[in-house]
């Protein structure tokens, strides 16, 4: 009983400013500022223009975070996206080397991604008993396998015609195009998830799939759409990846799925479904991007940066749980 009354006192609405600071997004913004101050102190080359110059390489992964957030809100997971990026980058390179016009190359990339995503969605909606983890594990191996077969024994391909990719790698003033695209897509995805009927249905499915089904939500249709969009965005990521790497090999996109999931989870999107929003994910993504740029400037090895991201990820999920447990233990005493 004591616990119950305690909880109701806790739920008294607080002032909106206080709520904003103590929400997860508020904490993330504080971490974001702290990371930027830390990087500026750590590396003398760290400033806005160098950040904007070095950002595009890492920004391609932020694309993946957006649909991944939808999938996590559904309470599911897709670990095949890295392989989809690899496959569509490979096909893009081949089409580009056949001297196709740039628009065809881009469309091919998006199409390959969409097709891969649709395969995932099709299997998952036809055989709903299957856990997404296993299906996307299998398709992860298959998509990368197809890319390996396509690449042949050499295992890598470089592009001959760079004009189009140089163009999309360009910038307005100092701001690269890709940053604009990331912001626009983030706003679109955030509005759809947060404000539209579709988004509310996604939350409904993530919270309780059966209830959502009985209240007339087309669960399978929505899952199919989300997995397909995940594929399309992977294709987009592949195209922007090519605009900085100008080639593909069998390890292209290795671990991208993990980075995308890490960004989303760090941003407060629960992997058990029904919780979180895009804003948190985007702030978390930029924290990771800034950390990579800043530490990368001082030749900190990529593995060490991954170590920091790993610790951040575990801490971000574990600490609130531990604090909650301690609070409950104190209260029951």
């Amino acid at each position: 009983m004591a616990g119950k009354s305690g909880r109701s006192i806790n739920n008294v609405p607080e002032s909106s400013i206080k709520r904003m600071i103590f929400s997860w997004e508020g904490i993330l913004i504080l971490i974001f500022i702290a990371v930027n101050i830390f990087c500026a102190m750590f590396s003398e080359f760290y400033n806005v223009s160098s950040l904007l110059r070095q950002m595009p390489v890492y920004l391609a992964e932020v694309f993946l975070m957006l649909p991944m957030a939808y999938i996590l809100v559904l309470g599911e997971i897709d670990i095949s996206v890295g392989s989809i990026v690899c496959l569509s980058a490979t096909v893009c390179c081949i089409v580009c080397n056949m001297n196709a016009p740039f628009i065809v190359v881009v469309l091919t990339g998006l199409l390959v991604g969409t097709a891969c995503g649709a395969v995932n969605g099709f299997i998952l909606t036809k055989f709903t008993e299957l856990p997404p983890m296993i299906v996307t594990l299998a398709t992860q191996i298959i998509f990368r396998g197809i890319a390996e077969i396509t690449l042949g024994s050499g295992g890598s391909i470089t592009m001959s015609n760079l004009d189009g990719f140089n163009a999309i790698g360009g910038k307005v003033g100092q701001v690269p195009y890709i940053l604009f695209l990331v912001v626009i897509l983030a706003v679109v995805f955030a509005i759809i998830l947060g404000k539209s009927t579709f988004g509310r249905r996604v939350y409904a499915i993530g919270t309780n799939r059966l209830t959502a089904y009985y209240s007339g939500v087309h669960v399978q249709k929505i899952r199919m759409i989300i997995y397909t969009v995940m594929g399309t965005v992977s294709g987009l990521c592949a195209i922007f990846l090519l605009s900085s790497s100008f080639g593909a090999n069998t390890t292209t996109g290795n671990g991208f799925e993990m980075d995308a999931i890490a960004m989303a989870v760090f941003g407060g999107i629960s992997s058990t479904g029904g919780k979180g929003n895009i804003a948190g994910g985007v702030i978390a993504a930029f924290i990771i991007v800034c950390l990579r740029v800043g530490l990368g400037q001082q030749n900190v090895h990529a593995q060490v940066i991954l170590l920091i991201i790993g610790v951040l990820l575990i801490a971000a999920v574990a600490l609130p749980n531990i604090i909650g447990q301690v609070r409950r233990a104190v209260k029951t005493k």
Partner: protein
Amino acid sequence: MEKKSFIKKLTGSREALLAAVLLVLFIVVTIINPSFLTVKSLMDMLKNNAVTMVMALGMLCVMLVGGIDISIMSTLALSGMSIGMLLKNDVIASTPLAFLIAIAIGICCGLAVGLVISRADVPPIIATMGFMYVFRAMGYLVSNGGQWAGAAALGDFKKFATTKFLGINCVIWVVILCYAFFFWFMKWTRTGRMIYAVGSNPSAAQVSGINVKNIKLLVYVIMGLLSGLGGALQVSVYASAMPDMQYGGEMDVIAACVIGGVSMSGGRGSVLGALLGSLILATIAKALPLIPFFDQLWLNTIKGVIILVVVVMNVVLQRIADKNALKGREM
């Protein structure tokens, strides 16, 4: 009536089905290339897949309680790299000590993962993903910035994988011992049965007096232990230690378990299934280069298709069985 019971039997005993698949695979490959079915080639196959086979046991335990562990190959790299560097810098020389150190490191890693999952309630996929980064980076730091411990540096340790005991390679003995132990452990000990109980219904297990949190901790410690052992085996079989060894290999281990009929949602799966699953994967990997037309490039695609076919088949058979069960009730 006859047909129904046949299908029921088929779905009921997954192991029989898997054994049949393995047998067919053996026969087909032997017809295409007789050099496959020789003692030496089979022993080689077992030796080269010892790491995956041993770790499939740990993954079985983890998946039985409804978890998953994708940090295992990072644990393997950390423990393998640690003993590699210790041997290289002549800190230790004896093989048993190296094995013990690798296993101890593995247990520590497993303990960390288990504590985060069981005590802080972090979803297993998220926690192990974080630890996958952390352990891999620690392995890299241990290696002093990406150094290798080559065959020359390993000294007597690499001989472990070439010495034979009673005509069978020591590495294969380790695999046999592990499987024998786990066969007994999962079937005839209280703790083994508790793991199954927690997996099939955690709340029922909780109210019947099983400490669910400790069982969850235990399975990740077992997984860590076997990863440490796998690290030592990996270093001795391939006679080299590098920080990026077995990158992405956790998918093979998970695939072996899934093919072996271990359910992702927990509670279902057996040691025999894990053995057959990893043997089927090993046979395919070994047989593919022997078959003309397919070369090594096709390996991953075929592996993925097989995983997909197996899980989809499973669902279809289950649906048929359910439908038949319903039919029986109507009559």
